[in-house]
């Protein structure tokens, strides 16, 4: 009984101190905040994580930038190439949902940049649905994004600005909730879809050298996507097959003669693969894309 009374008093006093401290306006910067030695609670570990970035880090381009680069390279719109929105019902595991969140983000960027806003709207809807399933509903919760989309559906620039807002909100949400490790999973889906859309167009229009060059250039990102996927925080997602498949694509690419020649020539501006090399790379990308979108 005595013990419980003491515990109650301690709790009350601690709570009072907490309230006073949180409400105070004066923050004495000289107060030592020992986040290491007060550890033992999860929140302190998170504080420490927040304040110490890794020694080596990277920035991956947004799906909109990738789509924009492909478009500038001559990529055409092919309505049959994108992943069908109704497949969303098949994605029941966390990994499938995250990967296809990325796939649909790339599809939405592709539609919007090609002035297919009505198609783009369908992808915004499935992205919103998937966000709810993967714990990111807060990014879309106000419904203002869909309203803005509908209001500006005829205005390509406004829709592109809206896409940037979605990207920024997603990035901020993941930063604030210590979900950065999952960004690589979303990006793996977006990257695969972007490459697939490039491959699809290039197969039908092999004269488009720019698209072929862009496919080769986007390969440079793959190493960091794999590193991100291999983050131990992603361990519970049965992600090994994805890392192995992407690793296999990277290894195959790095063994191409054109790739070796390109890196040995300091004056080389563009990497152009041979037809055989393109075909090999294309098959690997199509296989991976099928695995991801089939769930």
């Amino acid at each position, binding site marked *: 009984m005595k013990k419980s009374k*003491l515990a109650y*008093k*301690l709790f009350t*006093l*601690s*709570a009072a*101190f*907490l309230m*006073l*401290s*949180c409400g105070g306006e004066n*923050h*004495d*910067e*000289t*107060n*030592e*905040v*020992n*986040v*290491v*030695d*007060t550890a033992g609670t999860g929140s302190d570990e998170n*504080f420490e994580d*927040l*304040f*110490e*970035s*890794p*020694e*080596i*880090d*990277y*920035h*991956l*381009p*947004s799906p*909109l*930038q990738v789509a*924009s*680069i492909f478009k*500038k*390279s001559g990529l055409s719109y092919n309505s049959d190439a994108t992943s069908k929105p109704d497949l969303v019902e098949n994605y029941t595991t966390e990994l499938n949902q995250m990967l296809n969140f990325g796939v649909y983000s790339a599809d939405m960027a592709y539609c919007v940049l090609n002035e297919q806003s009505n198609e783009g709207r369908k992808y915004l809807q499935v992205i919103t649905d998937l966000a709810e399933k993967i714990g990111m509903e807060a990014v879309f919760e106000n419904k203002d994004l869909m309203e803005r989309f509908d209001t500006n559906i005829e205005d390509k620039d406004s829709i*592109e600005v809206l896409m*940037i807002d979605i*990207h*920024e909100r997603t*990035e*901020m949400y993941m*930063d*604030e909730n210590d979900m950065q490790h999952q960004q690589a999973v979303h990006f793996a889906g977006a990257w695969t879809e972007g490459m697939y859309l490039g491959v699809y167009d290039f197969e039908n229009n092999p004269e488009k050298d720019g698209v072929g060059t*862009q496919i080769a*250039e986007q390969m*440079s*990102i793959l190493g*960091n996507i794999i590193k991100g996927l291999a983050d131990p925080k992603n361990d519970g997602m049965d992600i090994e097959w994805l890392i192995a498949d992407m690793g296999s694509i990277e290894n195959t690419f790095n063994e191409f003669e054109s790739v070796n020649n390109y890196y040995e020539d*300091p*004056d*080389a*501006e563009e990497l152009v693969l041979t037809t055989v090399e393109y075909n090999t790379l294309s098959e690997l990308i199509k296989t991976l894309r099928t695995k991801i979108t089939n769930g």
Partner: protein
Amino acid sequence: MKKTLTLLGLFSFAILFAQTATNLTEFKENIASQKAEAKTQLKPYRFDGSKVTYFNFKTYKQVKEVEIYLFNNTDYRFSFNGKSLPNDITIEIYDKDKTQGDRILLKTIDGLQGKNVLVESSELNDTYRAAKNSKGRLKRVFVDYIITPVPGAVNKKPTMKERGAVVLVMGYKN
């Protein structure tokens, strides 16, 4: 006596925890506003994302590196905000990562503390071509944050005054 000590210990913990939470909230709010400021400076380039690099000043020099991709036919602008720096740092931008002995220094930025500084990929490419005497272009850059040593810093128990961050916002020309 034992109870009093326990009580004092718990009081200290509560104060410490509350202060940490307050400082953390304030720090995060500052970062968010600095990100917004850095983003404003990107215009007319299109926002592509941000990377906040957090660190603790220590008694020895540290280097943190961020790799950024530069794609063909695209111009980039990088907006660095140093308003969450309690001490100054140096930024060095290279063509290769820090393990490569033959890398080229493309740009140095001193005095970032309290400022927002812009860098464009075109100037980095010009420096690169001049140094290499070639027509090639940069396919990626490596941004190194050289975190200067601070005498008297508590390496194992960093305080808020030793914590710093650089906000980097990236944009591309559409």
